[in-house]
């Protein structure tokens, strides 16, 4: 076992870990040694090919096929330098004020999160896409919403030099998406933060991490690890866990922290989603242009959000319900397909949680509440109205049986789309907004939370959490700017306590 000593070790390099790394980087010039450990690889720009399975294998945990314990839902999350910021679409929204108020975390207020979010939005070049770059898939959503009486909003996006490849979810092939691998991690590295990829943290002990560095397999994308493959004993004065809403609670659970923290792993939410498609009479631009330019936020009133989207052939095929000739006919209509992603704003409930199996691997237990299913159904009905108002001939709704609804039946959508057709294991459900598991709460309240409002783990002053696992409940909107804002607070807490945490040499 090779021993390495650092002052701060950050586990994970996504929206949380990448932000903490950047915000602690100024400490390096005072002699503070900061290390980022990332389980996934570091890809070179020319390795982002946009090919579906090849990129999914390279960038996602389990190739994007991580399933909940009962196999009923697919959870998509990144496993590469930059974490999920490599594979999202760059949507950058500030947390809703009503949600943060409802979280009721003492010491956390919306104005503070909004101020921090604005700073990262500016750093990431967040802006609205100019109208000339919008594709038909997005324009039809906007027009359909207007005609159906809904107020769609445009997504602010963190792009620089977007060419409209439409391949965001496979890692931008043009280096145009400003994820942490493009912005915060290079800043951190330029100031002396060390980054080690292909480094899996197996467990955390007292100021110590057991780390396995993997060799690059033949044919695998990405550079070899910065360290020689092998087992490492990494010592740290401070550890920041930022492995995401599945990785962070799983790591802390297999390290034994669950004994003193019964809330560890609890409160998992994920905005369960369906992909809906509708066929138009003529080809539309859908697989060119940014895929996710508009959304319709009905979270407060009805518990759902709609987003434009565009997926790839296999992903689309998998997410349609059914098989055989009707399925094939829809796939052959690909150039005429409009797509909408419907997301339910699920709530933290006791039975939805992250656990670990006997080998320490994460297991996500998730059951759909009646409220979540109803939200998906209502969102699907609204989508049907939008599709048909935009001129679609027919649509595919997983919560209808049969799932194809013809234009002539548009008036019967409320009757055809119904919760009784929601059968787990039959309908495809996926989620990419993974939240909770190390919930923030009142300082010292280890019965109901894992950390305080600054990510300090209750009873373990040297251990911090800095990612989406901090969310005590669903955010009800795309989470990445809020993750960055919370991670910024975690870094600020460490800087403020640097003398106590890091010893005499650290700056005040």
């Amino acid at each position: 076992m090779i021993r390495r000593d650092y002052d701060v070790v950050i586990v994970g390099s996504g929206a949380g870990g990448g932000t903490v790394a950047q915000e602690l980087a100024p400490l390096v010039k005072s002699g503070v040694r900061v290390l980022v450990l990332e389980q996934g690889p570091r890809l070179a720009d020319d390795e982002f090919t946009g090919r579906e399975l090849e990129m999914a294998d390279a960038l996602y945990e389990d190739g994007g096929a991580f399933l909940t314990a009962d196999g009923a839902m697919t959870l998509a999350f990144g496993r590469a330098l930059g974490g999920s910021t490599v594979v999202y679409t760059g949507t950058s929204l500030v947390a809703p004020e009503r949600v943060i108020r409802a979280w009721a975390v003492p010491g956390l207020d919306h104005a503070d999160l909004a101020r921090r979010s604005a700073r990262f939005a500016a750093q990431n070049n967040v802006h609205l896409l100019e109208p000339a770059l919008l594709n038909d898939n997005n324009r039809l959503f906007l027009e359909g919403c207007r005609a159906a009486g809904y107020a769609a909003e445009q997504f602010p996006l963190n792009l620089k030099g977007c060419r409209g490849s439409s391949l965001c979810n496979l890692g931008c092939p043009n280096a145009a998406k400003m994820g942490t691998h493009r912005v915060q991690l290079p800043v951190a590295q330029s100031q002396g933060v060390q980054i080690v990829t292909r480094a899996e943290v197996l467990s955390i002990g007292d100021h110590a991490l057991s780390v396995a560095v993997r060799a690059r397999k033949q044919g695998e994308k990405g550079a070899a690890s910065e360290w020689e493959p092998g087992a490492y004993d990494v010592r740290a004065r401070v550890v920041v866990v930022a492995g995401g809403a599945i990785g962070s609670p799983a790591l802390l659970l297999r390290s034994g922290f669950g004994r003193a923290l019964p809330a560890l792993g609890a409160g998992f939410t994920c905005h369960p989603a369906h992909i809906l498609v509708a066929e138009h009479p003529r080809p539309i631009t859908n697989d060119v242009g940014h895929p996710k330019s508009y959304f319709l936020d009905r979270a407060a009133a009805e518990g759902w959000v709609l987003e434009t989207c565009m997926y790839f052939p296999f992903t689309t095929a998998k997410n349609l319900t059914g098989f055989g000739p009707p399925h094939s006919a829809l796939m052959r209509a690909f150039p005429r397909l409009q797509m909408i992603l419907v997301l339910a704003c699920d709530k933290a409930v006791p039975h939805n949680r992250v656990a670990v199996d006997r080998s320490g691997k994460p297991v996500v237990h998730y059951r759909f509440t009646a409220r979540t299913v109803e939200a998906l159904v209502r969102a699907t009905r609204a989508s049907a109205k939008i599709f048909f108002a935009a001129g679609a001939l027919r649509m595919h709704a997983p919560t209808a049986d049969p799932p194809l609804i013809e234009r002539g039946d548009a008036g019967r959508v409320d009757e055809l789309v119904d919760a009784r057709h929601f059968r787990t294991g039959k309908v495809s459900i996926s989620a990419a907004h993974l939240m909770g598991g190390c919930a923030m709460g009142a300082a010292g309240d280890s019965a109901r939370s894992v950390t305080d409002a600054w990510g300090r783990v209750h009873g373990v002053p040297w251990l911090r959490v800095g990612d989406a696992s901090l969310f005590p409940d669903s955010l009800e909107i795309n989470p990445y700017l809020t993750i960055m804002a919370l991670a910024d607070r975690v870094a600020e807490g460490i800087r403020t306590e640097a003398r106590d945490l890091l010893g005499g040499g650290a700056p005040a």
Partner: protein
Amino acid sequence: MSAAALPPIRPTFRALATAFVPEAASLDEPSWAEGEAIVERFLAARPAAVRRQLRLLLALLDFLPLLRHGRRFRALDAARRVRFLEAMQNAPLLLLRRGVWGVRTLAFMAYYARPAAASAIGYRADARGWQARP
């Protein structure tokens, strides 16, 4: 290096894949091999237990129609295959529904993850984005 999962179950897998994607019936041998190699790569990255479960599931799906139709799945005509799979995907047991969903996913992977299939359905995404469109 794990042993290939599909060879022992290839006839059943192809019969199921053809029911899920009727166009697969017209695939030539190199195209089948290409699709199955994609699935094989996917399975090789999964635990050995997943490959064992797949073999068991395919055996189950092949033999279950004996109870109702007196023939194995592979020996059923196209219409009966569809009816059987529809019944399975609506089965009261989640295990069965999710099993069919999983095999269906692998069939779609074998068919639609091939560049030729993506091109055949008109998928044209290109890293050059707007520049690649006339």
